[in-house]
Structures are given as C-alpha cells and as structure tokens.
C-alpha cells in the first residue's frame, strides 16, 4: 500500500511540476520565447490578432548573384525559399522583434539561421514591417508597409 501511495505521490508531483514549468516558459511580453524543450506551456492560439496587427516580412532584391528586375515579396518567392515554412516565418518575426527590442545578439542569431537554411540563394533583402487588419488583408490584400532595414548576406 505504501509503495502505491509513493508512486501516486511522485506522479502527482511530476504533473504539477510540468504544469508550473510549462506556464513559466510563456512569455507574456511577447518578446523572446523562454521555451526549454520539451517543456512547453501549450498556450497555442491563445492570442487573438487585433485590427492593427503587426508582422514582419522580407522583400528579396538580389538572388543567385543577380539583381532581380522587380523585388520579390517573401510570399511570392517560392523560387528562392519556402514561403509556407513556419520556421522561416518565425525567424523573420524574430529578426523584426530583435530590432524592435534593440537586441543585436538575438538579431545575429536569427539572421544566421535564416540566411543559411531558408534563403540560401538570396544575397540582398529588406526587412519590412506590415500593419494590417488580418480579415481585411485576407479578403482584399490591404496593408501598410514600412521599411526596417536592408541586409546583405555575409555583411554586418
């Protein structure tokens, strides 16, 4: 009987510990994720995008060592990257947020992984900030864009 209780006790403590550790990984300020794999808050889609939603994307100017006749938005750049990639999108958001929070180390880290895995053939691109109402943009394409910074691969 004692052993049974001991095992149940350990299990309950373990579950509570996972719950607490998971919640602690949640970043309420929406800055940088504190996630420590495989501990996770499981707070998926807890956030509702608002009418003035901000998102970052990139515009490609140079790829395969040739200047493009027309700069390409990331969403249209299937030839040079995978615009559907969740990782690519996350890295672009990280770069935007790193600049917003003046975190150079974070920017450098995100940029390196992004350039070496997601836009291997791209040499020059611009980070852009988009502001939009998600439903309106989905239905009409309407949005506002602001240039944040130009990047050249391999250069600061």
């Amino acid at each position, binding site marked *: 009987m004692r052993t*049974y209780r001991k095992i149940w006790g350990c*299990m309950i403590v373990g579950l509570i510990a996972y719950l607490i550790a998971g919640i602690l990984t949640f970043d309420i300020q929406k800055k940088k994720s504190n996630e420590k*794999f*495989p501990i996770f808050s499981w707070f998926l889609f*807890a956030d509702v*995008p608002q009418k003035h*939603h901000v998102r970052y994307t990139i515009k490609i100017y140079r790829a395969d060592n040739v200047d493009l006749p027309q700069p390409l938005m*990331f969403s249209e750049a299937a030839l040079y990257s995978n*615009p559907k990639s969740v*990782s690519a999108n996350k890295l672009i958001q990280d770069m935007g947020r790193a600049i917003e929070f003046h975190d150079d180390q974070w920017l450098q880290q995100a940029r390196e992984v992004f350039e070496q895995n997601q836009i291997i053939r791209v040499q020059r691109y611009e980070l852009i900030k988009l502001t939009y109402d998600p439903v309106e943009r989905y239905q009409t394409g309407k949005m506002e864009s602001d240039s944040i910074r130009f990047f050249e691969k391999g250069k600061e």
Partner: protein
Amino acid sequence: MKTMVFKKWREFFSGGTLHESEGSVFLRQRIQFSQIQTLIRAFYAAMVLHASFQLPEWESYLGRGKADPLWPVSWLSSVDQRSGILFILVLWLSGAVMAVVFTEKRWARGWAFLGFFFFAAFNNSFGKIGHSLHHWVLISFLLIFLPSCTQGRMGRQRVIQLFIAIQFLIGLTYTMAGIGKIGGIFLHLFNGEMSPLHPYAMSYIVAERLLQTNTDSLFGAWFVSHPYPTWIFLLGAFYLQFASLWFVARPVWHRAWAVGVALFHIFSYFTFTIIFPQSVFVLLLFFGASPFTPDRFKVREMIRSIPFIPRNLL
C-alpha cells in the same frame, strides 16, 4: 424473450466477452496489464514506422545549414555537424527497433527515448520549436520507468499506474492549452482588446494564420467570412481542451474524448494547415484503445459525467 434477444445482439455488436471478467478485480487487472503491454509495444512500432518514413529525408537532414541547437543537442556545435546528425538519425532508428524487440528491457526503452529526444531536439534547432513531437518525447521518457519486474500483482499494478500517469500527462497538455486560452481572454480584456469571447475572434485567428504561412486551407475562406458559426467551434474547442484532465479521469469518456480531440486536430489541419499526426496517434492509442474503458458504450453514464455540467441539469 425480447430482452434475451436484445442482450445477444448487444453482445454481438460490442464484440466483448471481456465483461464477463468484471466480477474479478484481479482478472481485470491481468487483462488491463496485457492490453497495456500490447499498447506500449504498438507505440514503439509506430516509432519505427515514423523513423522509417524519414529515411528518404536523411540526405536533406545531413545537408542542413547552421543550426541554433537546443540544449539536448548543443554538442552539435562542437563536432562536425554532418557526423553529429548521422549519429542522431542512426541512434533514433536503432533505438526504436530495439524498443520493439526488447520492450521489457529498460536499456532498450532508454535507447529509444534518447534517439527520439535527440532527433526531436535537432529537428527543432532551426529557429522554431514545433510541438508535434512533444507527446512522443514525454511518453517515451516516462516509459523508461516501467518496472523491470512485472511479475505478480504488485508488478502489474505498477505498470498500470505508469500507464495512467501517461494518460494524465497527455490530458494535462490539453488542459494547459485550455488554461492558455482562458488566460488569453483575461489578458485581452484587461488590455481592452478583442478577446476570444468576441464573435469575430476565430475569423481573425484563421485569417492571420493563413496569411502568416502564405497558405490556404479547405475551410479557411469560409471560416474567415462566417465569424458566428466559426466562433462556436472556437468555444467548443476551449471546452474540450480545458476539460481534458476531467475527461481522462472518467474512463467512460476515454474513447469519445480521444475521438473528439483527434477530430479537433484533423479539423485544425483543414482550417489552419497545422498538423499533429503524432498526437492523433497517441490519443487514439492510449485512449481510443484505453484498457480502462467499460466494454459497453454507456451513454447514460457518459451524460451523467460530463465535466463542469451540474448533474441536476442532466
């Protein structure tokens, strides 16, 4: 006579003779124990299948660019990355095979966990941590602690207890998802923003997700342009997720809850293009085939035990 015929029909369709053993606690324990052993082996067999399906991707894994390694594979930065990745892939596949063959050996289960843990960590070391492999990592970790001695009532009971712990852990992750969504309501309301309680919330969530990933889904456009019916789905998903731990505590609900959450995942793919196949598998394996579910579908008992709904209303 009528009752007899009905009983025979019910037995035929429920296909069970197991209920005959309900009188004996120890016999029931034996049956549950043997079902659990089969389920655990099936879990490792699925791991082999998963690892085998990834074989054509090995070349692409090996050729990946610079990683931002998560802590379990931080050693990748200090070795040749290609060799390190090859080591992880081999460890993963061989560990899964070993765990199917030697399920009762702790070293084999440890090997399977380590291989899968490293693979999942490596796969998430490129800027974004995905969560579809988390359940398998957590389950394979807990399975290491299966008792080595499963002889006798005590040994069998410990296996059953560990299995229950796994079920509760799975339920907890879904309840945490529900807690996050309820927390989101308060946070948005506190900031004077549109919260999930707003009928347009789901349309905004779907539109933003599809824009984010430059994709379209089967139901996406409909969801964006029909906020009210869509919102009902959102509230239903909140309930299903938040109440998960309570459903896990009610074996009579195991099958129905697992199918419900699996359908939620499948539906999420057709709406958000987010896919969690490993979680769907785990749900259907550990709850759809739950050894604790009554042999017969007890609708009345299920209705009486719906979480958070007072019994006098039912």
